[in-house]
């Protein structure tokens, strides 16, 4: 997996500054939309650790996102200092347990087993009283150390989501430069040889799967915090597929690809209905064109 160049990181920093300045020039609606994109970017970025980092394609990832979101509901009114680590830990523990079983398989069978585990998590919240209601439940937002007036929420959540995404990106950027990151890339390039060289491939993959799950839980937590609403739909497999689409659109080979992909897809979902009622058709055509024309995704345009 490549990393953004110094220039690429500078452009990302500029984009982050532009988002941070939105409270001065954008409407509350557009700030909420940007928050949606930032959360989608966190989710897709967490998946990139698996897809671009180790070469694993998982359909259980939305399950960990949903677990993070539902942690907020299940804990009840509490400080974000408790709900955020709890969401990450819950999703991480679930990912460790699921990964320990699913990673015994490879390729197509891994994909199918993650689909099965992901759907188990979905039905856990959809078909049992645990999730509160089939249609979702409104929740009380975690306490943010200070009282946030209703009018200031879009601004506060925008800046908060931007901070969490930036921290997640910086953390993964550093992680991929460690010996652990290099070993993951080695597995992605040639798992068989890595094993023959003596690497504990299974353990490395499980560590990546667990960390990616915990980060998806953080993204889910931020979604619950921003929307004050959780529903079983958050855990559906189509959400995992959507995140994979963001990774693909942005570029599997680049760490910052999913961020670009998440913003592009959010924008596409916003602009699609303006062109036609059949917005999925527009989205589908745009994604198809991007995948066919941009071999390395959006991140590969200026490489």
């Amino acid at each position: 997996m490549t990393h953004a160049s110094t220039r690429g990181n500078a452009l990302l920093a500029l984009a982050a500054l532009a988002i941070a300045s939105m409270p001065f020039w954008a409407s509350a609606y557009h700030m909420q939309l940007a928050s949606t994109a930032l959360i989608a970017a966190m989710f897709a970025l967490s998946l990139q650790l698996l897809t671009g980092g180790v070469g694993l394609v998982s359909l259980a990832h939305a399950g960990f996102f949903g677990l993070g979101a539902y942690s907020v509901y299940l804990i009840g009114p509490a400080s974000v200092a408790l709900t955020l680590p709890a969401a990450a830990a819950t999703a991480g523990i679930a990912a460790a347990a699921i990964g320990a079983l699913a990673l015994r398989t490879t390729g197509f069978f891994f994909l199918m087993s993650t689909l099965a585990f992901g759907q188990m998590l979905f039905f856990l919240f959809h078909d049992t009283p645990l999730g509160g209601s089939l249609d979702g439940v409104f929740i009380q937002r975690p306490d943010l150390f200070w009282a946030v007036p209703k009018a200031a929420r879009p601004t506060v959540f925008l800046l908060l989501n931007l901070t969490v995404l930036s921290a997640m990106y910086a953390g993964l950027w550093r992680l991929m430069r460690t010996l652990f990151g290099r070993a993951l890339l080695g597995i992605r390039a040639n798992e068989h040889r890595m094993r023959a060289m003596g690497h504990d491939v299974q353990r490395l993959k499980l560590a990546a799967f667990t960390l990616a799950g915990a980060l998806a839980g953080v993204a889910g937590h931020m979604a619950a915090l921003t929307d004050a609403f959780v529903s079983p739909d958050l855990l559906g497999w189509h959400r995992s597929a959507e995140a994979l689409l963001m990774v693909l659109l942005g570029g599997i080979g680049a760490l910052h690809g999913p961020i670009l992909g998440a913003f592009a897809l959010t924008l596409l979902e916003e602009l699609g209905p303006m062109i036609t009622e059949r917005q999925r058709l527009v989205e589908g055509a745009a994604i198809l064109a991007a995948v066919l024309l941009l071999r390395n995704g959006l991140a590969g345009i200026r490489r």
Partner: protein
Amino acid sequence: MMEARSLSRRFGGLLAVADVSLSLRPGELHAVIGPNGAGKSTLVNLLAGELAPTEGQIFLDGTDITGLSVAERARAGIGRTFQRTNLMLDMTVLENARLATVIPFRRLLRRADRETVPLAAARRALQRVGLPESALARTLSHGQLRLLEIAVALAGQPSVLLLDEPLAGSGAEDAAPIAALMKDLSREHAVLLIEHDMDVVFAVADTITVMVDGRVLERGTPTEIASSAAVRDAYLGHGGG
């Protein structure tokens, strides 16, 4: 020292390796030759842990390693190369060799560019085979890729080297330096060589084991093997080269 005792491996009705015993000693290059289908590659895969033996045991420095996985055996000191180039082609030559050093889990969060042990081991291995560090593996010639196979195995600092047809697909111009390298490596490592190029085998081997139909037909020095009537009949008669 690595020792295989009465190794057998059955695939359904086929006995690919039958009651094979051999020893690999430091400072010795032990070549295993035989016609196609003789069980040479199966033997390497049994020693490396890719396959479990149906019967028999494998020892490394007196310890029974028969139940160890591929990775565990590699960490115990068994390095190997592959018949078909098996590398990280989109990484540089140096990155390929650096990955050969296995770092304990607790130290994995250190920055890769500050960790000197893998770098030093990789550089030593690459200097030994004479490959450019910064080249992308994909851009190397076939002969250079075969050398990188050996360098990657070497960078893991093994005590035993299993070389599975290191000259596969190489021309005469690539064969000479690789043969010299193998001879050189056998001074410090216990080396097992599977090879079809008989000129190279007879030039570099200290001991030769001849396998036919999964069994050991003959074992001896190159001179003894060259003069063996049984080998001439059974092996050269197969036209295995």
